[in-house]
């Protein structure tokens, strides 16, 4: 509790004690009128002096619809009508509510801050032979920093020495530690668990992963959702309208019906107590902030409340294939040899491809698994778009696609099924082929199932890959549609067509790796980039960044989005409903000022507590039952 809050608490206690003594005396009418008034006034001033001060100050500045001013009028009005007890009680309860509200807000602020607690406090740097702690902002590119076990990695860099396991949970939501060793890149914000690491810094603090993530999350709530815009606009008109209604209520009915002014003024004062739209104005953005915070705890950065809101209305999810649904690393899946042993075939292919760094060549060399003896290779020439020709141990080896076979008039086994096929010929004789395929990510299938369960109408895949490969992956994952052999421009065109297929309110999300699909990401309602951890391009280009490589996180963030919107709706309906009912009851004379105080601050507190539920995303993270 802050100093300010403690002071208020004391005033509440003193005034509360006075009130509990005075109230029974007041009911029994034991005190003479003036001493009673004076005692109630003292209690009133103890509890409400700051409100009165602010009211005077603000009204001199022309703030007519100030909440303090309206509260002051309502309670002073009660005194004027002879309802001393009510005047004190209303102020007392209002202050209790304010205290709760202030406490709840600072508590929410703190739990959100804790969540974002990935900011490193210091960096250990070697200076004159001893280790000193410096501000991470002072460390420059190329400096060597030391990270001891248990410490947070302060800056992005490359490990020079040491190995350890890193806890990346704060960034990715992933609970399994990551093993790292010398030569590997490490990212700021991770916690070093086991070994001492010597790291060469590669980015300044302002450019580091941790600074970027913090900036993103903190500014995310500035991109306002539709519901927030509605509430801010609503709030602007709500107070003046209620105050005008109160004025009308005080004057018109007694003039028409001839009833006493006192009754109607009292009812009008009830209106003033409910005239602050605070509950709504606090709880709606707080819910979104909580949702964004919760998502980042699960390793998903949402760059704005508007995107979090849009995610709940997603109807179509479009995926890029390579790097998104598949791992993007190619492995040999089949070796077919006509005569020689499979081992010999892969050896020849690996030797022929030795000079190439193409992913296909790399995967063949990996499958071969042994060192290549360069002395056996002579005269390697690359045939652009076809493959390679090499002389190995005096034999002419051709390794490449069907076009290479055709141009050299070699009859080959036509094989149209999925995957990239490298054909091999030795001295003009067909030898066999090697099939290379991309691997589907372990959670891709579950991701599609989860999306379907979350109510996504269409799942689509766009790929530049061959029809056979694309169709095979789409079938394995149970996707609704797959468009294959697309050039980058075709992807945009295809996306435009899909945009027409959704309903008016529906959203289309595109999921890519964020590296070469910037035009598509820009064109969609929601651009989602995968594998954001360590990739600036992905963080820049997308609206939603998934820090890990798991497509299943898309369904996770959609669930968080739906929960957040549910909370927002509950709060709006609850706050407006209670206020509306109390206004009507108040106008009819059934609701007292006590009910009005509850409708004002009580509702705020309940709405804030409800909003904080958006932060709790634990159950969404426990969905990793891979079905493959």
């Amino acid at each position, binding site marked *: 509790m802050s100093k300010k809050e403690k002071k208020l608490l004391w005033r509440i206690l003193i005034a509360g004690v006075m009130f509990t003594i005075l109230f029974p005396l007041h009911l029994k009418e034991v005190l003479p009128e003036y001493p009673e008034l004076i005692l109630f006034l003292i209690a009133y001033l103890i509890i409400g002096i700051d409100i009165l001060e602010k009211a005077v100050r603000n009204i001199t500045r022309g703030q007519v619809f100030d909440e303090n001013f309206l509260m002051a009028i309502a309670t002073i009005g009660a005194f004027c009508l002879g309802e001393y007890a009510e005047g004190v009680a209303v102020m007392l309860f209002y202050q209790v509510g304010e205290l709760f509200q202030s406490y709840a807000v600072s508590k929410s602020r703190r739990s959100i801050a804790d969540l974002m607690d990935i900011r490193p406090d210091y960096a250990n740097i070697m200076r004159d032979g001893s280790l000193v702690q410096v501000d991470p902002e002072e460390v420059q590119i190329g400096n060597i920093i030391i990270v001891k076990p248990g410490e947070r990695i302060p800056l992005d860099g490359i490990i020079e020495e040491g190995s350890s396991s890193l806890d990346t949970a704060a960034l990715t939501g992933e609970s399994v530690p990551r093993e790292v060793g010398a030569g590997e890149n490490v990212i700021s914000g991770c916690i070093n668990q086991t070994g001492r690491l010597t790291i060469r810094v590669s980015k300044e603090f302002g450019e580091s992963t941790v600074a970027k993530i913090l900036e993103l999350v*903190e500014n995310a*709530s*500035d991109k306002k959702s539709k519901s927030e815009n509605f509430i801010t606009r609503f709030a602007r008109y709500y107070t003046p309208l209620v105050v005008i209604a109160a004025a009308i209520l005080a004057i018109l009915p007694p003039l028409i019906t001839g009833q006493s002014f006192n009754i109607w003024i009292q009812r009008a004062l009830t209106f003033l107590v409910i005239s602050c*739209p*605070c509950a709504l*104005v606090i709880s709606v*953005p*707080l819910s979104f902030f909580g949702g964004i915070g919760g998502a980042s705890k699960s390793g998903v950065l949402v760059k704005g409340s508007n995107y979090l809101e849009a995610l709940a209305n997603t109807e179509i999810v479009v995926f890029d294939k390579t790097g998104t649904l598949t791992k993007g690393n190619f492995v040999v899946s089949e070796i077919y040899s006509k005569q020689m042993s499979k081992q010999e075939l892969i050896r020849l292919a690996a030797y022929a491809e030795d000079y190439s760094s193409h992913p296909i060549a790399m995967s063949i060399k990996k499958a071969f698994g042994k060192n290549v003896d360069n002395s056996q290779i002579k005269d390697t020439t690359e045939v652009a778009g076809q493959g390679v020709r090499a002389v190995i141990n005096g034999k002419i080896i051709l390794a490449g696609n069907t076009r290479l076979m055709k141009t050299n008039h070699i009859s080959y086994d036509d094989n149209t099924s999925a995957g990239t096929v490298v054909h091999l010929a030795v001295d003009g004789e067909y030898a066999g082929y090697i099939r290379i395929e991309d691997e589907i990510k372990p959670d891709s299938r579950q991701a599609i199932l989860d999306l379907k369960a979350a109510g996504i109408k269409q799942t689509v895949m766009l790929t530049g890959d061959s029809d056979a490969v694309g169709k095979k992956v789409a079938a394995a994952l149970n996707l609704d549609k797959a468009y294959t052999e697309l050039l980058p421009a075709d992807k945009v065109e295809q996306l435009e067509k899909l945009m027409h297929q959704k309903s008016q309110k529906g959203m289309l999300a595109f999921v890519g790796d964020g590296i070469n699909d910037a035009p598509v990401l820009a064109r969609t309602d929601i651009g989602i980039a995968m594998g954001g951890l360590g990739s600036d391009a992905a963080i820049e280009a997308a609206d939603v960044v998934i820090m890990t490589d798991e497509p299943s996180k898309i369904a996770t963030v959609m669930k968080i989005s739906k929960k957040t919107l549910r909370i927002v709706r509950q709060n709006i309906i609850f706050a407006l409903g209670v206020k509306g009912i109390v206004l009507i009851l108040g106008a009819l004379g059934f609701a007292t000022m006590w009910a009005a105080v509850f409708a004002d601050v009580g509702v705020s507190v309940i709405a804030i507590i409800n909003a904080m539920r958006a932060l709790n995303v634990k159950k969404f993270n426990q969905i990793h039952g891979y079905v493959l």
Partner: protein
Amino acid sequence: MKKTIKLQDLDCANCAAKIEHSISKLDGVTNVKVNFISQKMILEAQDDQFDTIIAQAKKIAKKIEPDMVIMA
């Protein structure tokens, strides 16, 4: 020019909205966000008018939420 300004003791969410609305109407202000939760204001305005705008913004804030301190 864009500047993030800390707002100390910003206690009332409705006031935050009012302050944002009033400051956004100032001449030369291109964008302003008052964030009640992080107690910050992000102000974007023309370079040559920036100081006068900050002064005006302080005045507005003082008028709407007198307890608040702009840490600029």
